[in-house]
């Protein structure tokens, strides 16, 4: 019963957060000086034309009605319609979703692949040069802006070495080899920068375990340091890492949006950048809402994964 209660509670938090986020996003767009109709028609439009467009777009209704209309649409999968092109936001989103998903997915995976072993070395060898070197590299890596990392990668691997394309994208279905070649640099850049941040957390999670009484107990019954760490450390490290991953989701997503710009990848980031440049408000609003929804959903999933790895969350105290 405790388990069900926890899940229900977390779903409640998810819904409330979603409500709050949508209100916040809607409120910001309401702050527009003048309104969308004015922006669309330009400053020299006649008041009659503006009023007509307002009525057409439903902007003359009270804000609460407009909000309910908008959020009701989102709950049924309708993220609005572009004022400029007349396209549904969903029809703009879907074809670009894959690019961003590949980026975020590979980067999360790649950063873990880099950060877990590196963080472990940094923790175990923290008193020798290997560990200090890893920690120092992570410190430097954290200071490198992801887009600069991307630019440098282009300079080195595309301009000088000419191993990989500098930018652009080919869908997986069209040419898998070319698809991979175009994703290598962006994914590597994003993974490396993200890994630098993660290494610190992995390191401190391992150091914490090394200082735990139960690690000492494991050593005292005859495990070697490495095997004690694997048997009794990894699961406990995973518990603290899951929290971090939940918090990292949004930063990987932001990184992906920026990196799309560096490598001219046609993902959600480029959709957003175009919409912002054209001040296509409903597209920005809809896409941002979609991304926030994704972040909130993933962090809820991350919380559920606690239940899988931490018995203290799963079973109550018997007494």
């Amino acid at each position, binding site marked *: 019963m*405790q388990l069900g*209660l926890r899940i229900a509670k977390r779903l409640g938090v998810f819904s409330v957060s979603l409500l709050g986020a949508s209100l916040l996003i809607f409120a910001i767009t309401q702050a527009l000086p003048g309104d969308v109709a004015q922006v669309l028609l330009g400053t020299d439009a006649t008041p009659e034309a503006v009023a007509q467009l307002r009525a057409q777009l439903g902007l003359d209704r009270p804000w609460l009605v407009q909000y309910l209309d908008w959020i009701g649409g989102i709950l049924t999968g309708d993220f609005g319609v572009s004022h400029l092109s007349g396209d549904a936001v969903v029809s703009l989103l879907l074809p670009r979703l894959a690019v961003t998903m590949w980026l975020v997915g590979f980067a999360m995976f790649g950063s873990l692949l880099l950060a877990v072993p590196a963080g472990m070395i940094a923790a175990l060898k923290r008193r020798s040069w290997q560990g200090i070197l890893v920690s120092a590299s992570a410190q430097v890596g954290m200071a490198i802006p992801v887009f600069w990392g991307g630019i440098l990668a282009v300079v080195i691997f595309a301009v000088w070495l000419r191993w990989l394309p500098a930018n652009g994208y080919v869908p997986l279905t069209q040419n898998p080899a070319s698809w991979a070649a175009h994703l290598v640099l962006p994914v590597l850049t994003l993974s490396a920068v993200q890994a630098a941040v993660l290494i610190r957390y992995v390191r401190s999670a391992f150091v914490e375990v090394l200082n735990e009484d139960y690690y000492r107990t494991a050593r005292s019954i005859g495990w070697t340091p490495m095997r004690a760490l694997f048997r009794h450390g990894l699961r406990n490290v995973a518990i603290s890492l899951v929290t971090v991953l939940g918090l990292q989701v949004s930063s990987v997503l932001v990184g992906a949006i920026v990196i799309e710009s560096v490598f001219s990848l046609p993902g959600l980031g480029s959709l957003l950048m175009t919409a912002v440049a054209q001040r296509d408000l409903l597209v920005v609003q809809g896409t941002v809402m979609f991304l926030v929804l994704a972040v909130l959903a993933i962090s809820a999933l991350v919380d559920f994964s606690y239940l899988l790895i931490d018995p203290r969350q799963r079973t*109550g*105290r*018997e*007494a």
Partner: protein
Amino acid sequence: MSEALFRVEKLTRRYSDPGREVLGLDQVDLSLAKGGRLGIVGESGSGKSTLVRLLAGLDRPTSGRIWYEGTEITGLPERRLGFLRASVQMVFQDPRSSLNPRMRVGDIITEPLRSRLVRRQLSAEVDHGARLAEVLAAVDLPADAAGRFPHEFSGGQRQRIAIARALAPKPEVLIADEPVSALDVSVRAQVLNLLTELVADQGLTLIVVSHDLMVVRHLCDQLAVMRAGRIVEQGATSDVYSAPKTDYTAALLAAVPKIRTGAGRGDSEPPGRFGEPKSGREGAHQ
């Protein structure tokens, strides 16, 4: 019978933990006369700390009533508890936790004097400097201690600082919650001597909470034994020690380890025990 300083009637405190309710204190009755020295003993989870926190007005009971000098304190808002704050002071277990590491010792000790709530109760304006020097002398600390920070002192000295703070507003009642449990054995006796001395000199009413029956026996003339939120036995300390009326008290007394100086192992009586615990109550103290 003299007017009771503290009177407690059917005091109950429940804590709600996610998913279940925990009974901290269950229908406790108690009364303590002015000048009395009451020891409250029990194991972890027995409710002894909960009881004194309620007495000190740090927590609110789920039900039941508490009177201090005839005034009911249960249900009073914080701003009307000034009289209690001026006359009931506390000393805690671990001076590393009970002294703010970022305050100078002088400021720590005079904190009770600076509170508006307490100041209103004091008859005349107190000279902080003079009172500070007085209490520092009373606990055998040098006058220049006032300008230093807690971490510059040893464990025993820090507990003296905590005692000095409690004495600053000239309280009627001193509540000591495990006052020597966090201290090394060699310092423990010094602090116990100091407490004995201060209580005698200043005519304090003393309430001591401890898991250590020997500490309570030394400091107190009355004793309450608590278990699972209830007082299971109450009486004059000497009576309870010489002739415990309940099995639990007897077991608790028998379990106190005594120095065995017999020739070899095995010829001493087995240490006392009290069955296999029935609940998760058994266990480590806080």
